[in-house]
């Protein structure tokens, strides 16, 4: 974990600057303006522009190489932008990265837990680093333990924790000082679904207390957990909105079709004008058509003509993966 320098607890009080904005939320917590980072000839982040509201849970969602880590490192003030800027509670990361750091906690993919210290000793170490007053520690620890379920393991060496527990401890250490802004780089990478649920609980507890949280993930199915998501691809924002709005805006409908045999069924559908995409998922096909009711008869007729038996067909909620692919193809076609 790389994070703020000391003195964080004495940083901006909650709600500082709230009077500056006219909106009830007090203006955005983060404003990213044409943020760009090049490494030699390669542009890792290319003109990123978005804003994150106060208390918002915001997702940067995209595959490896999309620019998620580079973006978060610039927001955290640990990597200088090549051009553009980001303002955190009004402070510029390009001009004054040191002023930004006390406002935030940043958990990178390789955070620094001390493996030869216990769970509790690690938490106290970070509490010292962030100068959390001793009187406030018991209540914070109790709250963090409540959601992380790490309480029974408080005396275990961090080096002896499972991967999911280490990740929960890293997050707890980052949160011991109640930052205004929390930046998490792929916190759920390699973490099993049960530990992942605990991680999300810790994050939501912070959001409920007003912290603004930006989380990156390569897992499209996690996008639905955010208030808003920016889908990133090749250093750019493909699209940005609430998950529900992105799903609604998807052109066409996804049909889940069970048919036998499955792959010949898919091949039969790919030639159909009404079918935009057809993908095999385990025991069924996801078929993207313009309109479920209007196009279903043509789909069924094509399958029967190909000698396939249709077991069931139903309209599905489009997944974030469907949304991502639609936008990549649209961007490629433009």
């Amino acid at each position, binding site marked *: 974990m790389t994070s703020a320098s000391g003195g964080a607890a004495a940083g901006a009080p909650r709600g500082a600057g709230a009077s500056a904005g006219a909106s009830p939320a007090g203006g955005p917590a983060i404003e990213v303006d044409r943020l760009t980072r090049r490494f030699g000839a390669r542009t890792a982040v290319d003109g990123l522009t978005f804003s994150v509201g106060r208390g918002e849970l915001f997702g940067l969602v995209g*595959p*490896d*190489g999309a620019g998620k880590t580079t973006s978060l490192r610039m927001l955290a003030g640990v990597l200088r932008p090549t051009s553009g800027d980001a303002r955190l509670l009004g402070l510029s990361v390009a001009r004054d990265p040191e002023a930004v750091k006390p406002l935030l906690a940043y958990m990178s993919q390789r955070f620094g837990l001390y493996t030869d210290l216990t769970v509790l000793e690690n938490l106290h170490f970070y509490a010292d680093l962030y100068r959390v007053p001793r009187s406030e520690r018991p209540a914070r620890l109790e709250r963090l333990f409540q959601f992380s379920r790490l309480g029974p393991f408080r005396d275990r060496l961090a080096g002896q924790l499972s991967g999911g527990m280490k990740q929960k401890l890293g997050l707890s250490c980052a949160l011991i000082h109640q930052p205004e802004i929390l930046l998490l780089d792929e916190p759920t990478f390699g973490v*099993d679904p*049960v530990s992942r649920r605990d991680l999300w609980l810790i994050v*939501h507890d912070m959001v409920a207390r007003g912290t603004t949280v930006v989380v990156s993930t390569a897992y499209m199915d996690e996008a639905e*957990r955010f208030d808003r998501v920016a889908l990133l691809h090749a250093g750019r924002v493909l699209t940005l909105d609430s998950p529900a709005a992105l799903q609604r805006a998807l052109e066409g409908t996804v049909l889940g079709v069970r048919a036998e045999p499955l792959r010949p069924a898919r091949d039969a559908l790919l030639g159909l004008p009404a079918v935009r995409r057809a993908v*095999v998922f385990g025991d069924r096909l996801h078929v993207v058509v313009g309109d479920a009711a209007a196009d279903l008869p043509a789909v069924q007729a094509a399958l029967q003509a190909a000698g396939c038996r249709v077991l069931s067909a139903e309209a599905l909620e489009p997944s974030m993966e469907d949304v991502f692919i639609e936008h990549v193809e649209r961007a490629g076609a433009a």
Partner: protein
Amino acid sequence: MSGAGEPGAAPAVAVEVEGLTRRFGDFTAVDRVTFAARPGEIFGFLGPNGAGKTTTIKMLTALLRPTAGRGTVAGYDLVAGAEGIKRSIGYMSQLFSLYADLTVEENIGFFSGLYGVPRARRAARRDWVLQMAGLAEHRQRLTGELPLGWKQRLALGCAVLHEPPILFLDEPTSGVDPISRRSFWELIGGMAAGGTTVFVSTHYMEEAEYCHRLALMNRGRLVALDTPGALRGAMREPLLEVRTDRGAEAVEALRSVPGVVEAGLFGRAVHAAVRDPAAARAQIPGALAARGIQVLGIAEIEPSLEDVFISLVQAGGGVLDG
């Protein structure tokens, strides 16, 4: 997939194990696991860390001897036929073993030698991999310079150069973009349709969705084995989506409501597995109001694979920590 009605000379079973067990000292990592996989099946292994997935796969790939139980892979006994098993399997991990400073073609040549592909077959197999992975025009490029999705396809090609009937994949498409992931699974689907049995070990429901059947492991035991659709349909408890003004606190509160088996956050909403939906709907608003939490809505929803997974893990006594 019924799998019935497709006559052929292929054996009826690709992998079968019975009472497979592995102990390390006092710790039972894999506890009496029994299942069979058909040729051409895409078989997923799910489970939290420490569930026994890796130990099971090590036994199936003859890297580890079982303490008890028996089984065969491609017709070879897990213990007596270890050498035969090693010749019959391909293995690809998310941490591929490709050499970054070799070209695409050099990597293929290296693995052809390693897997003992006969010299007469090598050119044909190389061309097959280049074509399958869509890398024919990039054969001279350094592997380290390729995009992640291309590397994954090349690693897959290298893992099957010796045409193994059984393929093991460990989170094969972790972190890859969705378009590459789909094209990767399209290749896997093609191999399975050609009779290759594919084992996939993963934490990620996105990968699990591509499997024909899923084996859920927890605490060394096989806790469920079925198609993704049947698993979703057979979730033990009905699932309620509870929307409140304070999600994280609502989870805590719901966990202490009788009749709520498990509660977790999904976005800002809580997913609660309950014994009796009608009773729970009546009880939950009051229980949350007592903690100062307002209920904005309750609806019964279709469980996702992740909900099913968590429900089964909790029913089996939770995650084994440490």
